[in-house]
């Protein structure tokens, strides 16, 4: 490493022959717009960074600081920044063309900047030394300031000429795709796109103009400063058309103005994400969580949103055009604009299905921000849970069974689920305590989702006491909403928290439960809280494959569409929920399965209201296919 640096350093000391500064003071007025722009954005960024750090809690700040110097997280930071900000691997995986477009612009531009600096470091190192020598702008406009004798063109120089032209072409191909996307977004796999704001438009048109202008500008100067396969032919062409080189100054001016304007518009536009995403990555990797909807970590999230609109296609509410405005991208836009009324309206409407978060290329956790926003209004509402204090298990827990089954509030409205779960347990010869046969205390998740954290905590502590006292070893849930909160927020030491899909899969794999394979076909719906919420995708599918023919939905796993029945939304009305259920069913029945299987009482109810084909619960299907010995 040091050897490499040393070589680089020695190299930089030698100014190769035939390279001359065309402007001895290395300054021309045209650099001004760029300098103003870049200075503005740097000051803006610095203030923003200080603000964000200031609003973090002391504990979070400490955690962030430590993480920066922990080799493991530091490495992960570098890897994530490289993959997410430059290569956009997340978009590549889902939509290759869109991924190419983003990486072309991001990675290409990054390489142009890096190579430009290396070039200056190699050939005109003194200009990097101080701001007075033009360190701020010189590498950007290097081709303008330098004169290179064609007789002295070295191999090293040619390589850079080639690389610079190559990456410029790379970026230009991305820009061309971006322009095409504006006209026909579906070609790049996007059905809905965001409506750009004024600042977005300014920045966008500048961004489109920057690289073609750079090509033109460098084309004009290619005979003086050197060039490669792109700029050289262009230069010949220009010379034939325009005759002399006097035309090139206006192009450099334009190039600089576009850059400057872009940077000036940046903080008010979607392109701010280019600079803030690395900060978000670093803070996320440090394990920070959203505490306030607009300050601290949340602010980093908000400014990292690229407003790309992938969440519009992801949002289950997009079945109705009027509900598109509740998508995360607009939520974050209003947060940036401090539009209090709109912010609350959107925060309350969301189903909290988490699909926008799962598909977000930047990883903006907007469900968390929405929850925090709800908390600002709802946490002060009072409640009284003292009547639940003396809740004790009714069932005789003297024989202290290993398993405790907690059906949850909703399952009591779907007796089929309770009946199937209990009879499967009985068939497997398992003894269990039915925690809430005659009703019990709510798991607390709905309260959490509504932003009433204190109330939720109280419910959690009451349930926790009941569970710990029972002496069970396994807590079995049939409702993914309960499962999520029991798993994430209960901290039940020594007790395995399992969703019934996981537990039945285990029983079947261990051979404690035997099922027979039928011929009927089915499709499995991933409930939001179970799939995206807890990452349980494989177990239910595993079981269903051993029972019948498992068909695929058009979109499944982390792309599955919410049933519309989610408790996450506070204000969505019944009709709109029905529309979402219909679109979710259409998605599931793409391959014409004989039945829909789900593992959540809410999905089960929402689908049964609308589905043309039978809707079954996971346990019900297992129950139907138990091999009797």
């Amino acid at each position, binding site marked *: 490493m040091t050897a490499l640096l040393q070589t680089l350093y020695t190299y930089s000391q030698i100014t190769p022959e035939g390279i001359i500064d065309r402007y001895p003071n290395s300054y021309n007025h045209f650099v001004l717009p760029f300098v103003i722009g870049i200075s503005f954005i740097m000051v803006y960024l610095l203030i923003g960074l200080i603000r964000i750090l200031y609003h973090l809690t002391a504990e979070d700040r400490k955690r962030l600081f430590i993480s920066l110097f922990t080799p493991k997280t530091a490495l992960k930071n570098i890897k994530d920044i490289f993959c997410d900000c430059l290569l956009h691997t997340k978009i590549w995986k889902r939509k290759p063309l869109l991924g190419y477009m983003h990486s072309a612009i991001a990675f290409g531009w990054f390489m142009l900047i890096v190579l430009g600096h290396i070039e200056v470091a190699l050939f005109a190192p003194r200009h990097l030394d101080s701001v007075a020598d033009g360190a701020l702008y010189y590498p950007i406009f290097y081709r303008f300031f330098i004169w290179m004798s064609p007789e002295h063109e070295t191999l090293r120089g040619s390589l850079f000429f080639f690389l610079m032209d190559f990456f410029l072409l790379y970026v230009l191909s991305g820009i061309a795709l971006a322009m095409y996307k504006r006209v026909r977004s579906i070609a790049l796999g996007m059905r809905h796109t965001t409506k750009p704001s004024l600042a977005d438009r300014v920045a966008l048109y500048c961004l489109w103009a920057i690289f073609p202008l750079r090509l033109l500008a460098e084309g004009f100067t290619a005979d003086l400063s050197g060039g490669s396969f792109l700029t050289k032919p262009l230069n010949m062409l220009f010379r034939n058309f325009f005759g002399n080189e006097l035309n090139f100054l206006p192009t450099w001016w334009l190039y600089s103005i576009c850059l400057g304007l872009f940077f000036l518009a940046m903080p008010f536009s979607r392109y701010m994400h280019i600079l803030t995403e690395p900060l978000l990555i670093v803070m996320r990797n440090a394990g920070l969580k959203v505490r306030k909807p607009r300050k601290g970590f949340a602010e980093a999230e908000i400014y990292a949103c690229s407003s790309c609109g992938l969440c519009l296609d992801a949002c289950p509410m997009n079945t109705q055009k009027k509900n598109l405005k509740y998508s995360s991208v607009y939520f974050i836009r209003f947060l940036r604009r401090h539009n209090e009324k709109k912010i609350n309206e959107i925060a309350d409407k969301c189903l909290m299905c988490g699909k926008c978060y799962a598909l977000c290329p930047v990883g903006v956790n907007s469900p968390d921000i929405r929850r925090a926003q709800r908390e600002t209004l709802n946490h002060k509402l009072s409640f009284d849970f003292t009547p639940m204090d003396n809740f004790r298990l009714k069932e005789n827990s003297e024989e202290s069974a290993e398993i405790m089954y907690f059906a949850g509030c909703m399952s009591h409205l779907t007796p*089929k689920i309770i009946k199937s779960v209990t009879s499967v347990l009985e068939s497997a010869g398992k003894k269990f305590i039915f925690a809430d046969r005659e009703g019990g205390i709510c798991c607390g998740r709905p309260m959490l989702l509504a932003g009433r954290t204190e109330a939720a905590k109280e419910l959690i502590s009451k349930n926790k006491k009941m569970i710990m006292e029972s002496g069970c070893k396994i807590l079995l849930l049939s409702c993914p909403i309960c499962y999520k909160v029991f798993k994430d927020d209960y901290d039940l030491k020594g007790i395995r928290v399992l969703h019934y899909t996981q537990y039945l899969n285990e029983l079947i794999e261990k051979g404690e439960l035997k099922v027979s394979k039928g011929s009927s076909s089915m499709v499995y719906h991933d409930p939001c809280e179970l799939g995206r919420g807890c990452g349980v995708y494989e177990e239910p599918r595993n079981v269903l494959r051993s029972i019948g023919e498992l068909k695929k939905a058009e979109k499944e796993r982390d792309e599955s569409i919410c049933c519309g029945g989610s408790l996450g939304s506070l204000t969505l009305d019944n009709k709109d929920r029905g529309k979402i259920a219909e679109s979710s069913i259409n998605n599931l029945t793409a391959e014409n399965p004989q039945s829909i299987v789900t593992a959540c009482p809410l999905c089960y109810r929402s689908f049964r209201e609308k589905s043309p084909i039978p809707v079954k619960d996971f346990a019900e299907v297992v129950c139907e296919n138990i091999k009797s010995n």
Partner: protein
Amino acid sequence: MKNNILIIGGGPAGLEASSILVKMGYNVILVEKEKELGGHLAKWDTLFPDGLKAEDLLKSLIKKTEGVKCFTDTQVQSVNILDKSYNVILSNGITVLADALLLATGFDLFKAEKKEEYGYGIYEGVITNADLEQFFKGKFSIKKPKAVGFVHCVGSRDEKACNPACSKVCCATAVKQACHIKETFEEADVFCFYMDLRMFGRHYEDLYLKAQKMGIRFIRGRVSEVAETSEGRLLVKAEDTLSSKPIKVTLDTLVLMAGMRPSESGYMVGHQLNLSVEEDGFFSTKDTMLSLQKSNLEGLFFAGAATGPKTLPDTLHEARSAAMEIDNYLTKK
């Protein structure tokens, strides 16, 4: 020349209209999808308010239809609108060129298993109003109950069941059935869970009073959920809204008063003709007062529950006025 009239649906409306039209001298063809004529009437035991035997009514309705060409076990395969008539192909291969069409497609009973929380199809003791009539007819068995409950408005007045409208006949049916149960099992406690008791017709209030006198308990509250006790009985939860207290009661039989939904096979016919339906799914009539039997299509008429829930007397009235409208239409033509 005799005009052809095709009547779709061999329930009370179709039967009554066909018998009148055939007497007027028309060539009447009646199509019924089931093997037997009579529609829901054929599956019912007795009728409110006075306990008339459904079988007797049906017999007299059928007796009048002499001269009508009846095709049972037959469905409409396709309908085409011609210049002034309808070309109808039936599932038995016969093609009818009808000068007038009468849709008497009636209703389907709400599928009670859709209200999962009531446990129809899950708990043995939960049955529907139709099942209970079958029991009265001796074609369905239930264990001798100690306590019986009736749930009004199952799939009616319920947005969750996609039917916000009242089905009109369930209240009276429930009270009638409750009395019948009490007569059959004198020892049994009988409860009716209602939201609003809609006993609107002549003699209906007498029926209500009779039920009260028999000791049937009316509870103003909708059943919210049904669970199973460890002995396999039914634990029913509701709110007694009059005393503002949630209540629970253990029952052996719970009768769900399934409401009226538009007939699925009727919908299929209407769909081919592009007939408009209202939000409740029933066909829309030409207007809401003067032309209740007319549709927006020339020569196409309605009678009975195809245009919304109706009692039997209403249905029979409609059948008669439909017959008259058809006669007017064909004479003018």
